[in-house]
């Protein structure tokens, strides 16, 4: 069975997340987006786990679904063409802050667990290490390697995956507080790390430049803090619906079940380029090198972004494609495309209206972005929208890259183009 899995999200128990991050909304938005398996996120949090226990019921092995009486009323708010089964997989993200080899390391890791009982075991173990109640993504003063040991002691079937492996401040390869290789972090236990998450600011092609990453499955998830952000990135799988099948798609290098990923345009990610947010300075890696890592405005150190970091660690030029590589599609969230087309804010009501109009006519967001014919989209939306999605699919867009915590900004059309395409419209 072909389906999408987005396994890294956060609940309303995490700091700076939407109140709407609760099981019902996840169930709803997964359908709108076209996600079949969604991670629960935050299963190390006692409050969230209790909520999950109350609202979910077991489905296939290691997977859960929203209890039918809850699902029934939620499904009424989902356009017919989008309605689909949704499954939950227990997942969590842990922030480890610790010193190793004389430097402070700050690393986020994803954990996937085979069932609720193991999630409770994880909680009991972590509660003795740090505070698991204040934040859905707990901060522990625990070496990531020790965390891996704890996770594997809890269950062989549990999986640990370094999260958004390249972000400067909180990742295994991050420029600020990561390592130069996954091995440096996990040492002799590295073989228990089947995959790394590429994160929004990098795509598989950037990772292919490091032969040291050839042994890891490159997975992608949204890291959503609100339901609309689901499927910013996701994994494309072709296997049965069960925890063991999903895990083996990640862990077995030759698995035919892992088809590839959906990716954010990495330039749109918050840490793609270098720069200094306080001074609104965005810098390409070569600018940073020329400026000796300093901000031209205030002379403080700039935050080195993912592109720079990849170039630093890469042993191959751009364009390498390892044999085990899986394909990926870069996409822009539909609401952002609508906002760009309409030249209005992404949170505006009009964007929302057009979005749901499209979904009710064409099906879930994945279908609109990737599968619907351009002509269909023109008719359901507008000529500009059809053109915009066509350009996205073929990569003919420009993006001002994100830097130092600022998202990149997308431009699908130059101003004169917009007039030309609208002008054609006026001829009819």
């Amino acid at each position, binding site marked *: 069975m072909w389906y999408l899995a987005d396994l890294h999200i956060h609940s309303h128990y995490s700091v700076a997340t939407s109140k709407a991050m609760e099981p019902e909304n996840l169930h709803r938005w997964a359908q709108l987006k076209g996600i079949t398996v969604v991670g629960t996120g935050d299963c190390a949090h006692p409050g969230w786990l209790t909520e999950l226990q109350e609202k979910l019921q077991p489905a296939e092995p290691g997977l859960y679904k929203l209890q039918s009486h809850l699902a029934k009323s939620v499904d009424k708010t989902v356009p017919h063409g989008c309605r689909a089964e949704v499954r939950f997989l227990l997942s969590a993200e842990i922030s480890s802050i610790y010193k190793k080899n004389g430097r402070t390391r700050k690393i986020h890791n994803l954990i996937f667990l085979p069932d609720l009982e193991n999630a409770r075991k994880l909680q009991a173990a972590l509660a003795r290490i*740090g505070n698991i109640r204040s934040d859905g993504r707990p901060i522990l*003063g625990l070496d990531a390697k020790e965390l891996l040991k704890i996770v594997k002691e809890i269950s062989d079937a549990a999986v640990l995956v370094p999260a958004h492996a390249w972000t400067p401040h909180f990742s295994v390869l991050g420029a600020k*507080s990561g390592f130069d290789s996954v091995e440096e972090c996990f040492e002799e236990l590295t073989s228990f790390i089947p995959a790394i998450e590429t994160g929004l600011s990098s795509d598989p092609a950037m990772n292919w430049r490091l032969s040291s990453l050839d042994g890891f499955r490159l997975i992608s998830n949204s890291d959503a803090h609100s339901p609309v952000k689901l499927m910013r990135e996701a994994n494309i799988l072709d296997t049965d619906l069960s925890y063991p099948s999903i895990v083996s798609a990640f862990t077995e290098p030759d698995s035919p079940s892992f088809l590839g990923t959906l990716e954010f345009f990495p330039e749109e990610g918050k840490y793609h380029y270098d720069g200094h947010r306080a001074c609104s300075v965005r810098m390409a890696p070569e600018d940073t090198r020329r400026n000796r890592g300093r901000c031209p405005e205030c002379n403080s150190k700039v935050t080195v972004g993912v592109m720079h970091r990849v170039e630093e660690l890469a042993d191959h030029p751009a364009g390498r494609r390892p044999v085990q590589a899986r394909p990926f599609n870069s996409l822009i969230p539909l609401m952002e495309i609508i906002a760009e087309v309409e030249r209005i804010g992404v949170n505006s009501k009009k964007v929302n209206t057009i979005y749901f109009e499209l979904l009710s006519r064409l099906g879930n967001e994945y279908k609109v972005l990737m599968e619907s014919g351009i002509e269909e989209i023109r008719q359901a939306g507008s000529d500009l929208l059809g053109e915009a999605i066509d350009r996205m699919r073929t990569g003919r867009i420009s993006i001002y890259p994100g830097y130092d915590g600022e998202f990149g900004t997308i431009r699908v059309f130059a101003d004169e183009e917009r007039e030309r395409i609208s002008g054609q419209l006026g001829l009819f």
Partner: protein
Amino acid sequence: MLEELNGAQRLAVEHGQGPLLIIAGAGTGKTRVLTHRLAHLIEKKMVEPNQVMAVTFTRKAALEMATRLKDLLPQPSRIGEIPIGTFHSLSGSLLRESTKATGKLELLSEAKQLDLIKEILRKLSLSGPDWQPLDVGRKISLAKGRLLSPDDLNSDSENQLAPVYRLYQHTLEKDNFLDFDDLISRLVFRWEGEPKLLSRHQSLFKLILVDEFQDVNEAQYRWLQLLAASHRNLCVVGDTDQSIYSFRGSHTAIFQRFQEDYPNTRMIMLEKNYRSSQRILEAAVEVISHNGNPFTCKLWSEGDPGSPVRLARLGDDKQEARFIVAEIERFLGGSSHYQMYQNKDIMPSEEGQYGFRDFAILYRTHAQSRLLVEALSNAGIPFQVIGEKAPFTTQAADGLLAYLYYAMDTHSSKNLQIIFNLPPRGLGEKAWQWLEGEIDRGVSSWEALRLASRNSAFPVRYQSAIDFLRRTIISLQNYLAELPLTELLARAWEETGLGQYFAEISSAQESFGWLQLLAGIHGDNPAMETLPAFLHDLSQWRSGDFFDHRADAVTMMTLHGAKGLEFPVVFICGLDQDLLPLAHKNQGEEALQEERRLFYVAMTRARQRLILSTVDRRSFYGEYRTCKPSSFIKEIPSHLLEEVSPPARKRKPPKETQREFF
């Protein structure tokens, strides 16, 4: 071996015969000097390993000394021959060796000692706040530390203690028991009365080395004096400025006394510090110089000048806690994306230096820790409060567990006693005594309960209260067979009334949350099957370490607890007048000096950063009091201080007020 030592250290190490007084300031390499000295004397064949005695104050210090000494010895395997230990362990073994002929001597455990004192207080009908058993034990210990017998007590307050002390000591001697303090004083008394024994013991040791000499009490001093009388080869090491336990009976004049008793003493001061930055040292030395102690070490270092001491003046103790959290975040360079996005004040330049274990937050009283714990928890920063028990050891949790134990085993009268009137249901001592009487007659406690509920001699309210207790136990027994553990706990918490009784007490609520969490891992089988494993886990954690030591955490502890430790970044909070220095019942210059020493010890824990804070208002048991900054702040020269203004808080612009006319 000697090359790595500085000049003063080397003098101390190479000193030959005769009394030696080493004043070793904080961070000046004291243990290194002691171990090198021992190793040097052994290497030069001036003494055999078994002829030097090294006395430390704690087992931990003894262990550390042995570990470090071992590597310096020409024959490391001979480390076992050197008597290294605490006063109590060394004296105890001499005492035992000399008592073999005269019969057994048993050491009274602390628990038994407390029981004995309670019994004596009961016999003498002494009760009330002045007669807390722990306090009484401490007073007796102090008297013994001063080598005072019950008859020697003379001041009024001591006189009151005399009959208790007398009966206590009589009981000990009658049963051939020793308490902890007797290990020293008994030997002193025997030496004084048996010259042969003394001279035999004296001949065993050619040199005695004593660490933390400033904390030695009268009995220990006398003990040393007697044992070293023939050769006077005493090497004592200490720092009166780090003497923070006067209430334990030590005194700072001890160095002077030593010099008077041993006029040819050689004094060496170790003042070169290898721990703290120059600015921190300068500030600490300035502060302690106000004590006018002739034995003060003028600490200095060749190290980094370092950053100024930071001082934050804040509105209240909540702001203080937030400030400390913000500082830790700043030093860490942010602990989350969100927090970094919110706060542009993080220090990218500091990033990469510190982990959680590099921070210590020190406070004068345990009460100050509450808000700090809250603020650190809210920020998700891992921390550990030293001296803290496992979080599920509260009266509420103990009560809940006693209910479960009793429901499982209704023969256990110990557990029945705990829950008998918890939550309070009007069942007093009298009811319990009746029950106990029945149990003593061989009736099971469950049967006794049944009888009590029908005892017409009891008032009706007793009967109904006991009836309620019995019904609660019966329903718990039913749940045990049917419900999973977590649900059993939830029902028990509610139906016993504990949940309601402790509703307002957050530590109780929290401990229940912990029990729930820890019960969760035992699965969904009926509690009957999982409860034993659960209780076993709890007892393991209760006695041992609940917190997993694989993890880094910010350390929180009192100023007293910090002695002997060091941290890259130290916060000393609550620098308010009356808190540090603490307003004692017995005010006066001596008390003030002790507080200043405490502050000095805390300051010298810091390697790179020292951050002080004081507030305008502080809450005491729910009530705000106005505070003044500590007088100690003024003792730090201003050029060493960097005043920090509180983090700017977003304020709503003041509303335009407009009069309204009708």
